[in-house]
C-alpha cells in the first residue's frame, strides 16, 4: 500500500494504532479512542486550515476507529475534501473513507458525486480508476443513477487506458448487478463485445465477466460475441505457455480467462457457422489432449488451473450435447479422475458424469464406469462424494443395469448416512418402478426397501406400490403372498403394515387357498400388529377388516367381535371410533350383495405422474434432477414399460417443467369438465391413490386423506402457483386489501364504469353515477365457474377517519350465486367532507367447500364529486392568483406513462369531472380545468393546469401538473390521483 510506505508514512497514525494494540483492557482502549477523537475534533474545528497530509492522517485515524467498531459522526466533510486533492495517497484515503462510511442518503452524496465526476473526466488514469473503484464499492442505486450513463462511454472510448477500461468494465458489471434497469443498452453494447479482441488480456478478462452477465439477460444482443470468444479461446489454447507471459499461471496460459470464455460460450447454443464450430471443436479437443499430457509442474496450482479449464470445457461439451466424439472423450477423461487420489477431483468427476449420463451419446460410455462408481459409493470417506456417487448411479441406470444398481443401492442403504437416506429411498423406489421388467422383482425390491429403511420411506413410496399393484393384475397374487410373508417377521415397520393391510384387504382372497394363509390366519396376523401402530394405520387396518368381511364371510363374526370391542367402538380417537361404528353397522345391516358392491375391489388408478418423482423433484428443487428427468423422458420415450406409464410420466414432467403446475392447470379449466368433488382435492398427492375411490365408491378409504390436505391447502399452497390470482384470493386477514387494489383504484379515477376485479372464480363489474355530493354505485358479481358460490357476503367498511368523511350504505346481496350467474348490489355514497382514502369492500364466499376471502378498494375518489365550472380566461387567472397560498398549491412533475395523445388526454380530463377550459392558457399545448367539489360540509373550488412537455431532457415525455384549490388536502390528493393517470 503506497499510503503507508516509508517516505509518506503517517507516524501519528502508526503511534495511535500501536497505542491501541498495547491497551491492556477494553476500558483503556475506549479511553485512548476518546482522547484521540477529541483531538481530531479540535483539529477539525475549522479555525485554521489543515494541510492535506494532516487531513489524510486524521481521516485515516477515524477510519481505523470506525473499523474497531465505534461510531463516527464527523469528518465526512474532510474526507470529501480529500477527494479533490491532487495527491494520490490523499485521494485514495478519501475514497476509502467514503466507500466504507458514507451511506447513500447522506447530504454529502452530491459533493461526492461531483468529485467522482471530476475524477472521471480527468485525464489521469489512476484518478479515474480510484473513482471507478469507489463507484463499484458503494454500488448503490444512487451511484448507478448518477454514473450508469457515463461508465459505458469510458469503457468504449478509444483513448481510455487499459487499466481504466478494466476497472470500468468491472464497475459497470457491479452496477448492472445491483440495478439492471438503470444500465441501459445502447450503441456501446456492440463495442463492448469487441473488447474481446483487445490487446490487453486484463481488459479482456474484465470485459468478459461483464459480457457474460449481460448476455445472460439479453442473449440476442450479444450473439456476436460467440465467434470472437471462440477465436480468442483458440488463440489462448494454441499459444505456447510462454507467449502470454504475465498471464501464464504455473505454465497454464490465462486459466481464468479461458474458464470465463468457456462459461460465456455456455450461454449460447453451438455456433451455426461451420468454420467457427470447427475451430471451437478443435479448441476443446486441444484442451482434452492437454489433460493427457504429463504435468509440467508438480505444484498443485498447475494441476488446479489445468483441471479448472478442463471441467469448464467438459461442461461446455455437455451443454452442446451434439458432439458424440467429444462427449465420449470427456467421459473417458472423467473416468480417469474417478480414481484420482484428489477427493475434490473425484467429486467433480462424479458430478460432471451425472450430467453426461443424461446425454444419449455418452450414456453408454458412462455406464462402463459402473464398477468404479459403486466402489466409490461404498468406500468414499466423504459423505458429499458418496452422495454424488449415488446421484450418478441413479442417472446412469437403465434397463440393462437396473437390477445391479438397485441391489447395490439397497445394500448401501443399510449403512448409508442418515442425511441422504430418504433421498436414496426415493431413488431406489423410482428406479425399481421405472425399469421393472417383472413386477415380482419390483414388489420384492420395495418391500425390501421398507424393511431396510422403513423410517425413511415416505408416504408417496408406499402409495405408489399400491397403485402399481392395483393396476396390474399379474402381480397381485405375488404381492399378497410376499407381504403376507413379510408380515410374519416378528418386528416389521409400520409402513410394511400399511402396505400389508391394504394389499391383503384387496387381494387376500388370492392366497386364501393355501391353508397356511387362510383368511383367519391373515386376519390374526394383521390384527397382531394393530396395537403397535399409529392412528392412521389403525384406521387403514379397520378398512382392511371390513374388506375381509366381504372377501371371506367366514371371518365376519371374528371381525365384528373386534369392531365391537370397547377399544374400537369407544376409542378416544374420533376417526377410529367412527370407522368402527360405521363398519360394524355396515357389516350387520347390509346384504351380501350390497356389501359386495360397496366393498368392491379398487378400480385401476388413472395414470399420472409418479408422485415419488414429484417428491424427489421437490426435494432437489428445480435444479439438475428435473432437467435430467426430462431428458431421460425424451430419450426413453420409445421403450416404455407397464401400460404407457412412462410416456405419461414424461409428458406430465414436461408440462410441469414448463411452469404451470398441475394445480394451476386444474384451476385454469374454466369451461372444461365439470369441476366436481375430485377437483378440490387434486392438489394433494394422496389423490394418486385415493381420489378415484372417492368418486366411485361409497367413500371406502376416501377419508384416509389426512384432514390437513383438504382443498384449502390446494389453493393456499399449491406448489407452483406463482401465477397471481388464486393464491392471493385466500388472504386470511380481511383488513388488508389485495396488493393490486391500489392499481385497480387508479383505473377508475377517470371513468365510472368497468370491470373492477377478475380472477378465475369471480368477476366484479362496476357502474356508478354521481350527482353533487351523492353517488350511487352498482356492483355486479359474476360467478365464472360452474359451481355455485354459497354464503356469499359482502361488506363495505370505511377504515379510520374515513368513517367521518364518507357515508356509505350498501344493500345486502343474495347469499347464493349459481354457476355462471350474476348478482347485483347497490351502494349509496354520500360525501360529508373531503377525503383521501377509499372504502374497503370485503367479499367472502365458499367455493367447493373452501372459504374465499378477498378485500378490494372501492373506486370512490374525491374527484367523483366534481361539478364542472365554465369560466373565461380572465376569470380563471384571477381565481388562480387568489389561490396563491403555498399550501393551496400542489405540483408534481412526472414521466408520461402513456403516449401523449391530445384527444386521450382531453377525454381523461373530462372523465375527471372538471370542466376543460379551451383558449384559456396562452400555450395551446397546455390544459386547464376548473371545477367545484361538492361535499356536504363545504364546497371546494379547484383549478388544474397540466403542461405536457414532449421533449424534456433525456428525450422523455414529462408532465407538470399543478392543482390549486381552496383546501390544501384536496390539492394534494388530486395531484396524487392524477399523477398516475397520464
Amino acid at each position, binding site marked *: 500500500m503506497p499510503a503507508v510506505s516509508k517516505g509518506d508514512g503517517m507516524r501519528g497514525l502508526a503511534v495511535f494504532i500501536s497505542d491501541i494494540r498495547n491497551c491492556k483492557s477494553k476500558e483503556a482502549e475506549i479511553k485512548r479512542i476518546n482522547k484521540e477523537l477529541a483531538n481530531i475534533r479540535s483539529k477539525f474545528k475549522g479555525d485554521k486550515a489543515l494541510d492535506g497530509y494532516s487531513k489524510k492522517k486524521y481521516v485515516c485515524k477515524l477510519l481505523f476507529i470506525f473499523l474497531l467498531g465505534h461510531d463516527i459522526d*464527523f469528518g465526512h466533510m474532510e474526507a470529501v475534501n480529500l477527494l479533490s486533492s491532487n495527491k494520490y495517497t490523499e485521494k485514495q484515503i478519501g475514497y476509502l473513507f467514503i466507500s466504507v462510511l458514507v451511506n447513500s442518503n447522506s447530504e454529502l452524496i452530491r459533493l461526492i458525486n461531483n468529485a467522482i465526476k471530476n475524477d472521471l473526466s480527468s485525464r489521469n488514469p489512476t484518478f479515474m480508476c480510484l473513482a471507478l473503484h469507489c463507484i463499484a464499492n458503494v454500488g448503490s442505486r444512487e451511484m448507478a443513477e448518477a454514473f450508469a450513463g457515463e461508465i459505458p462511454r469510458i469503457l468504449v472510448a478509444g483513448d481510455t487506458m487499459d487499466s481504466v477500461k478494466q476497472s470500468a468494465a468491472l464497475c459497470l458489471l457491479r452496477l448492472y448487478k445491483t440495478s439492471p434497469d438503470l444500465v441501459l443498452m445502447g450503441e456501446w453494447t456492440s463495442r463492448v463485445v469487441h473488447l474481446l479482441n483487445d490487446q490487453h488480456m486484463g481488459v479482456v478478462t474484465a470485459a468478459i465477466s461483464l459480457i457474460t452477465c449481460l448476455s445472460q439477460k439479453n442473449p440476442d444482443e450479444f450473439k456476436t460475441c460467440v465467434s470472437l470468444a471462440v477465436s480468442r479461446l483458440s488463440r489462448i489454447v494454441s499459444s505456447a505457455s510462454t507467449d502470454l507471459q504475465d498471464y501464464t499461471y504455473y505454465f497454464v496460459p490465462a486459466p481464468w480467462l479461458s474458464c470465463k470464455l468457456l462459461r460465456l460460450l455456455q450461454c449460447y447454443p453451438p455456433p451455426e457457422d461451420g468454420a467457427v464450430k470447427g475451430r471451437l471443436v478443435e479448441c476443446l479437443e486441444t484442451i482434452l489432449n492437454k489433460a493427457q499430457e504429463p504435468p509440467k509442474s508438480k505444484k498443485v496450482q498447475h494441476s488446479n488451473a489445468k483441471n479448472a479449464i478442463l471441467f469448464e470445457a467438459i461442461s461446455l461439451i455437455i451443454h452442446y450435447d451434439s458432439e458424440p466424439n467429444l462427449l465420449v472423450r470427456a467421459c473417458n477423461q472423467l473416468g480417469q479422475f474417478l480414481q484420482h487420489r484428489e477427493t475434490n477431483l473425484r467429486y467433480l468427476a462424479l458430478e460432471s458424469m451425472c450430467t453426461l449420463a443424461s446425454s444419449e451419446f455418452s450414456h453408454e460410455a458412462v455406464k462402463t464406469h459402473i464398477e468404479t462408481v459403486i466402489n466409490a459409493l461404498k468406500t468414499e470417506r466423504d459423505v458429499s462424494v458418496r452422495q454424488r456417487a449415488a446421484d450418478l448411479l441413479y442417472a446412469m441406470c437403465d434397463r440393462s443395469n437396473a437390477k445391479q444398481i438397485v441391489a447395490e443401492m439397497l445394500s448401501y442403504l443399510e449403512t448409508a448416512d442418515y442425511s441422504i437416506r430418504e433421498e436414496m429411498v426415493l431413488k431406489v423406489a423410482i428406479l425399481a418402478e421405472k425399469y421393472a421388467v417383472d413386477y415380482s422383482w419390483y414388489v420384492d425390491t420395495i418391500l425390501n426397501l421398507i424393511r431396510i429403511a422403513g423410517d425413511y420411506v415416505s408416504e408417496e413410496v408406499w402409495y405408489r406400490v399400491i397403485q402399481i399393484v392395483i393396476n396390474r393384475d399379474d402381480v397381485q397374487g405375488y404381492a399378497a403372498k410376499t407381504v403376507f410373508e413379510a408380515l410374519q417377521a416378528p418386528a416389521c415397520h409400520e409402513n410394511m403394515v400399511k402396505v400389508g393391510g391394504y394389499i391383503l384387504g384387496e387381494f387376500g382372497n388370492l392366497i386364501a387357498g393355501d391353508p397356511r394363509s387362510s383368511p383367519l390366519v391373515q386376519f390374526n396376523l394383521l390384527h397382531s400388529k394393530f396395537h403397535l401402530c399409529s392412528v392412521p394405520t389403525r384406521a387403514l387396518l379397520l378398512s382392511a377388516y371390513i374388506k375381509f368381511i366381504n372377501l371371506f364371510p367366514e371371518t365376519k363374526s371374528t371381525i365384528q367381535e373386534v369392531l365391537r370391542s370397547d377399544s374400537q367402538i369407544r376409542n378416544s380417537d374420533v376417526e377410529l371410533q367412527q370407522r368402527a361404528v360405521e363398519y360394524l353397522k355396515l357389516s350387520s345391516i347390509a346384504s351380501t350383495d350390497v356389501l359386495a358392491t360397496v366393498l368392491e375391489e379398487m378400480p385401476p388408478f388413472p395414470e399420472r405422474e409418479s408422485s415419488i418423482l414429484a417428491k424427489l423433484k421437490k426435494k432437489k428443487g428445480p435444479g439438475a434432477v428435473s432437467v435430467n428427468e426430462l431428458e431421460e423422458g425424451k430419450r426413453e420415450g420409445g421403450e416404455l414399460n407397464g401400460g404407457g406409464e412412462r410416456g405419461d410420466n414424461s409428458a406430465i414432467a414436461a408440462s410441469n417443467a414448463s411452469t404451470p403446475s398441475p394445480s394451476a392447470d386444474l384451476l385454469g379449466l374454466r369451461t372444461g369438465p365439470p369441476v366436481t368433488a375430485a377437483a378440490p382435492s387434486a392438489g394433494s398427492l394422496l389423490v394418486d391413490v385415493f381420489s378415484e375411490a372417492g368418486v366411485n365408491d361409497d367413500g371406502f378409504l376416501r377419508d384416509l386423506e389426512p384432514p390437513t390436505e383438504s382443498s384449502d391447502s390446494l389453493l393456499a399452497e399449491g406448489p407452483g402457483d406463482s401465477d397471481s390470482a388464486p393464491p392471493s384470493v385466500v388472504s386470511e386477514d380481511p383488513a388488508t386489501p389485495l396488493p393490486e387494489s391500489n392499481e385497480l383504484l387508479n383505473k377508475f379515477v377517470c371513468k365510472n364504469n368497468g370491470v373492477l376485479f377478475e380472477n378465475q372464480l369471480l368477476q366484479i363489474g362496476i357502474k356508478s353515477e354521481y350527482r353533487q355530493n351523492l353517488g350511487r354505485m352498482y356492483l355486479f358479481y359474476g360467478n365464472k365457474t360452474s359451481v355455485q358460490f354459497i354464503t356469499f357476503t359482502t361488506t363495505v367498511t370505511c377504515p379510520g377517519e374515513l368513517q367521518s368523511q364518507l357515508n356509505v350504505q350498501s344493500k345486502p346481496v343474495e347469499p347464493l350465486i349459481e354457476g355462471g350467474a350474476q348478482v347485483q348490489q347497490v351502494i349509496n355514497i354520500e360525501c360529508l367532507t373531503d377525503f383521501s382514502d377509499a372504502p374497503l369492500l370485503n367479499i367472502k364466499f365458499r367455493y367447493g367447500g373452501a372459504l374465499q376471502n378477498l378485500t378490494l378498494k372501492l373506486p370512490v375518489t374525491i374527484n367523483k364529486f366534481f361539478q364542472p365550472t365554465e369560466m373565461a380566461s380572465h376569470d380563471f387567472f384571477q381565481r388562480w392568483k387568489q389561490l396563491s397560498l403555498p399550501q393551496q398549491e400542489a405540483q408534481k412533475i412526472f414521466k408520461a406513462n402513456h403516449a401523449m395523445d391530445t384527444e386521450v388526454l382531453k377525454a381523461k380530463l373530462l372523465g375527471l369531472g372538471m370542466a376543460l377550459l379551451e383558449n384559456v392558457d396562452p400555450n395551446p399545448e397546455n390544459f386547464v380545468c376548473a371545477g367545484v367539489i361538492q361535499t356536504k360540509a363545504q364546497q371546494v373550488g379547484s383549478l388544474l393546469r397540466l403542461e405536457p412537455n414532449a421533449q424534456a431532457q433525456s428525450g422523455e415525455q414529462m408532465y407538470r401538473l399543478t392543482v390549486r384549490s381552496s383546501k390544501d388536502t384536496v390539492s394534494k390528493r388530486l395531484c396524487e390521483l392524477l399523477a398516475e393517470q397520464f
Partner: protein
Amino acid sequence: MIGGLFIYNHKGEVLISRVYRDDIGRNAVDAFRVNVIHARQQVRSPVTNIARTSFFHVKRSNIWLAAVTKQNVNAAMVFEFLYKMCDVMTAYFGKISEENIKNNFVLIYELLDEILDFGYPQNSETGALKTFITQQGIKGQPQTKEEQSQITSQVTGQIGWRREGIKYRRNELFLDVLESVNLLMSPQGQVLSAHVSGRVVMKSYLSGMPECKFGMNDKIVIDKQGKGGTTDEPGKSGKQSIAIDDCTFHQCVRLSKFDSERSISFIPPDGEYELMRYRTTKDIILPFRVIPLVREVGRTKLEVKVVIKSNFKPSLLAQKIEVRIPTPLNTSGVQVICMKGKAKYKASENAIVWKIKRMAGMKESQISAEIELLPTNDKKKWARPPISMNFEVPFAPSGLKVRYLKVFESKLNYSDHDVIKWVRYIGRSGIYETRC
C-alpha cells in the same frame, strides 16, 4: 454447590483453576472466556448460563473470578463466598492483581483447599486462616504440637473465629462506620432515588474471650425503650433514631439474640473484620447539592454552569471532592473557569473533572464552562448524562450513631472502662448523580 473456581486475567487467560466436582469439565473454562470475557456487549450479567452450566463472576480491577456450577445453588451464597474470597486474598497479599496472583498461586490453591470443600464453603475467616496457612516458612514460626492441636480444636470448635489465650497489654478497639451514599436527583432538585449502604468495621485487640455488645440508634430499639421507660416525644426520638431497611452480620453475632431482643452481642474475632452491613433509604442527609445549568447556544456552543453546595455542619470538612461534568461527544474545545479547586477537560473520559481538596459545611462553589462543538451530520441529540460527584465526609449520611459498645470479660480482670475505644464515621459517595 460450587463445582469449580477459575481466575482469569483481563485477556481471558486462566491464572487459577480449581475444579471441585466432576461435572465441570475443562471446556467450562473456555466457555466462560468465550461467552463472557470476550463478549461483545459492554454490560455483562454477573450470572451467565451456558449449556446448563452457571457461571457467577466478580471482577476486581482486571481480574475475573468465576465460580462455576451445574447445580441449582443459592446465587447470593456464591457471591458472598466470592467476595469473602477477595477479602481473604487481599488480607494475605494485598491488592488483587495479575502480578500478585501469579506470585502467590501456591498460596491461593492452599487457601482454596481450605475454604471450599467439595464445593461447600468452609471457614473463611481471615484471622483463623492465618493461624495455619502462613506465608513464611515453618522455620520462622516454630509451632509446637500443642499449638497445632489447639488450632484444630479451634477451627472445628464452636467459636471458630477466635482462638483462646490471646493477651494484649493494652485492650484497644477501633470502630469505623463506613457509608456510601447513592443519589439520583432531577435538575430541579427533586430526589428521584437515594439510599445509603453502610458497613461497621471493627478492629479489636482484646485479651481473652470477651463478650461484646454493640448498640446504635436503631429506631426499633429506641422506640421500644421509649415505651418501656419515660415516654419521649415521638418527633424527638424520630430525629435521633434511624430506620434500617435490612442488615447482615458477621458470623460471630448471635442471631437468636438479635431476633428476640434486637441486641447485637458477640465474641469478636481478633484483628480486623466487618461486624455488620446495612442499608437505609429514609431521612438521608445529602452532604452535597449540585445545581446544574446547561444552555445550548446555537449548534456549536454549549454553556455549562454548575454550583455545588455543602449541606452539613460548618465545623466539618469534606474531602476529596470531585465533580464530573459530562461533555457532548462532539466537543471540540473547552474553556473552564472555577473559583475553587482545579478543573480540567479530560477528553479520554468525555468529561470535565473538577477537583476540590477540602470544603467546609454550608459553603458553595461554582464552575462555569464554555464548550465548543463540532457540527455533525447526524441529528442525534446529546443524551445529557447526569453529573456525578465523589467526596468523603466525616459523618454518617444515614444518621447512624454508635450509642455504646460494651466489653465484658469475666475471666480476666479488665472491665469495660479499661478498654480504649475509637469511633470514626466516614461517609463516601457511591453513585451520586444529578441530571442536567
